[in-house]
């Protein structure tokens, strides 16, 4: 099968599965992932090799778009209103998930450094799943804004937590005394570099944006700049997600008519997301599910409990509404690429336990990815972010 047939198969099956999901009130993203699992190399094997090989490229395209659309929620106006809540909740949710998992893993009898690594990975969430559901159901409101902010910032805390834990784990296990500062330094380089990159490109983008008048140029300019930023981030080993988020956050705060850039992107991005999630499904190693074991099961449950408790405390400290207290925890359930990326680093750093950690995370990711979106939808629903007439309708493009 050639690449074009493969892409068309993904698009058409994705469309069909999305329609079926709508009928049974399930988020489209869950349907895309399941289709991906079905046609992927671990079951039917319909997806041609050439496309599986291009998954990495496609996921960078999609993630850069996703991060860019998340970034628009960081306008000064919104931040003044909810900034305090976003910061408190995101820190405490990450801390909660991390500590709970570390303690639970130690109780399970794992070495301390392995427990630390699991804890660090537990902090990560998957922004992509969230934004897909917000888009599909046109969720709007304070709860949605806070959630977007938490999931975005989360990424930065996750990176810091992970590099600190990685450094400690290395110290404990290999007795590398100096590595703490080195690893911390690289986390700050990654975060700081992403900020500088997104900020500088965003600022330049905004300066020239007034020359771009027609729709066609607008689309090229926006897409080109996003890819440019993502490409530089990859080149310098920075975070694509953070770089593109900051890009959008800068544009939203510097340019007055920034909504044009986000709107034009919404006319084109959905097919890319569809392909991205079907391929993500195809790359899930479902045969690992049988190896999930007691540790995997504990990880899944305890991580959620930690997120919920952390969110609860964060919401109390920052005087958030009761909806936030109750439902925002479960909305942070999805876990995907960021966690897998961390697990991959662990695998290559610790020969002894790395493979087991990676397999467990890869297996739990499958469950989080498929079940997570349903919980996000429930959370948005309970918090009344989905208006009644739109509940059963999937996304409509802005003209």
């Amino acid at each position: 099968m050639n690449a074009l047939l493969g892409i068309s198969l993904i698009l058409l099956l994705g469309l069909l599965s999305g329609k079926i999901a709508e009928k049974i009130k399930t988020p489209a993203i869950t349907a895309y992932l399941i289709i991906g699992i079905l046609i992927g190399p671990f079951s039917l094997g319909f997806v041609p090799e050439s496309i599986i090989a291009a998954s990495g490229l496609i996921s960078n395209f999609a993630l850069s778009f996703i991060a860019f659309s998340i970034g628009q929620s960081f306008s000064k106006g919104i931040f003044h209103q909810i900034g305090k809540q976003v910061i408190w909740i995101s820190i405490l949710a990450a801390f909660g998930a991390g500590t709970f998992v570390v303690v639970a893993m130690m109780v399970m009898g794992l070495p301390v450094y392995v427990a630390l690594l699991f804890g660090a990975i537990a902090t990560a969430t998957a922004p992509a799943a969230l934004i897909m559901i917000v888009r599909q159901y046109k969720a709007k409101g304070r709860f949605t804004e806070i959630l977007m902010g938490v999931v975005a910032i989360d990424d930065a805390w996750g990176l810091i937590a992970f590099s600190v834990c990685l450094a400690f784990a290395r110290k404990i296990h290999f007795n590398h005394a100096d590595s703490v500062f080195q690893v911390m330094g690289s986390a700050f380089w990654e975060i700081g570099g992403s900020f500088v990159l997104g900020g500088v490109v965003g600022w330049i983008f905004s300066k020239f944006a007034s020359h771009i008048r027609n729709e066609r140029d607008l689309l090229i300019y926006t897409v080109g700049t996003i890819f440019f930023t993502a490409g530089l981030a990859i080149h310098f080993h920075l975070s694509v997600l953070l770089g593109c988020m900051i890009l959008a956050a800068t544009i939203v705060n510097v340019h007055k008519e920034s909504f044009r850039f986000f709107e034009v992107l919404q006319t084109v991005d959905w097919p890319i997301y569809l392909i991205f999630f079907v391929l993500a499904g195809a790359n899930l190693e479902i045969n690992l599910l049988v190896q999930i074991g007691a540790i995997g099961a504990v990880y899944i449950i305890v991580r959620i409990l930690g997120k919920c408790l952390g969110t609860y405390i964060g919401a109390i400290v920052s005087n958030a509404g009761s909806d936030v207290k109750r439902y925002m925890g479960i909305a942070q359930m999805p876990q995907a690429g960021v966690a897998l990326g961390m697990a991959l680093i662990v695998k290559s750093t610790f020969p002894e336990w790395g493979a087991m950690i990676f397999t467990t995370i890869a297996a739990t990711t499958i469950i989080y990815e498929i079940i997570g979106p349903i919980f996000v939808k429930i959370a948005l629903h309970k918090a009344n972010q989905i208006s009644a007439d739109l509940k059963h309708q999937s996304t409509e493009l802005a003209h």
Partner: protein
Amino acid sequence: MNIILGVGIILVFGLLSGKLAEKVKTPAITAYLLLGIVFGPFMLGFISEDMLKVSGTISNIALSLIAFSIGQNFSGKIFRQVGKQVMWISILEAVGAWLITLIGLLFFKVPAYMALIFGAIAAASAPAAIIMVVREYKARGQFVDILMGVVALDDAWGLIIFSLSLAVAKAMYLDLSSSLGSMLMGAVIEIAGSFLVGGVLGIILSRIGLFLKNQTDLLIWTIGVIFVATGIALHFHFSVLLTSMFLAAVVVNLNNESFKFFDILNHIDWPIYLIFFVLAGASLEIDLLSKIGVIGIVYMIFRIVGKFLGTYLGAHIAKSDDDVKKYLSLGLLPQAGVALGMALIAKEQFPQAGNIIFTTVAATTVIYEIIGPFFVKLALHKTNQIHN
């Protein structure tokens, strides 16, 4: 450089070069091609091997979308108005280019079988370049309708002429008299297969399209079906261009709201075309320009003369306006992928002469691709198809 960075740079610089081109009243596509040449392996070497590797897939995607948008001009209504002119002009300009180039080259002592193949390649034009110029300047009118029709049909005639000529040339050179029938058969299968795939999928696209209410679904559906058609065409070695054109032609005649399929693509396709033309520029073998030789120059000039005379005659028979007689052939000058594809086949069939043919066509393509769009714009301008 990673691919995503490369794409970002191509888009940003493509936009910039397009803006500059606008200032000097040059079609954007020329700017994209020039940018590609500058970025390409013969100058800056900026576009990596990785990117040129995926350019095959990108060009299939771009060409299928371009052909799809050409196909919308084949509505019953437009065809009743200009069908007769399109038929006459397209047949005669293709045959004209073939015949005049053939005679011209024979006059310069080029072996008959080679001249025959050059003539056949001369019949081809480049729909992509032509439609880009029409789109950029939002050209509208009867001249544009006729031009679009001619450019589309051109492709089918070109295929037939090429396979016939190739068969005859082989018979002359290698003395295989049996191949004529099978060659022609090959062309007929390619054309008929493209029609069949385009037709069946066109029916499906428009029938199921009726149920899709929101824009996102419509976009996914339209792109999905176009890619299925293209994928099948590639698999069976049919023509991607003809398949996609026919797909659109069927949709336009079956569905009253067919404009929605075309409108939705109009929102998204330009960045793909931009990347396509920059990559096309990067893969132009400009180092061949010095090897263009007498044959190349004769080929270029006589092809133009042939196109002009054929168009003139066709327009005369079909009683077209003076504008069509005079200027339509200017709109047919660009030559690109189709001609190169033919030259590649010739190269495989004839070890020695084939090399000369391929090199010459690859070199003249550089010139036709860069100058062609200017003439298209000029033709549209002269015939008042550009409204502001």
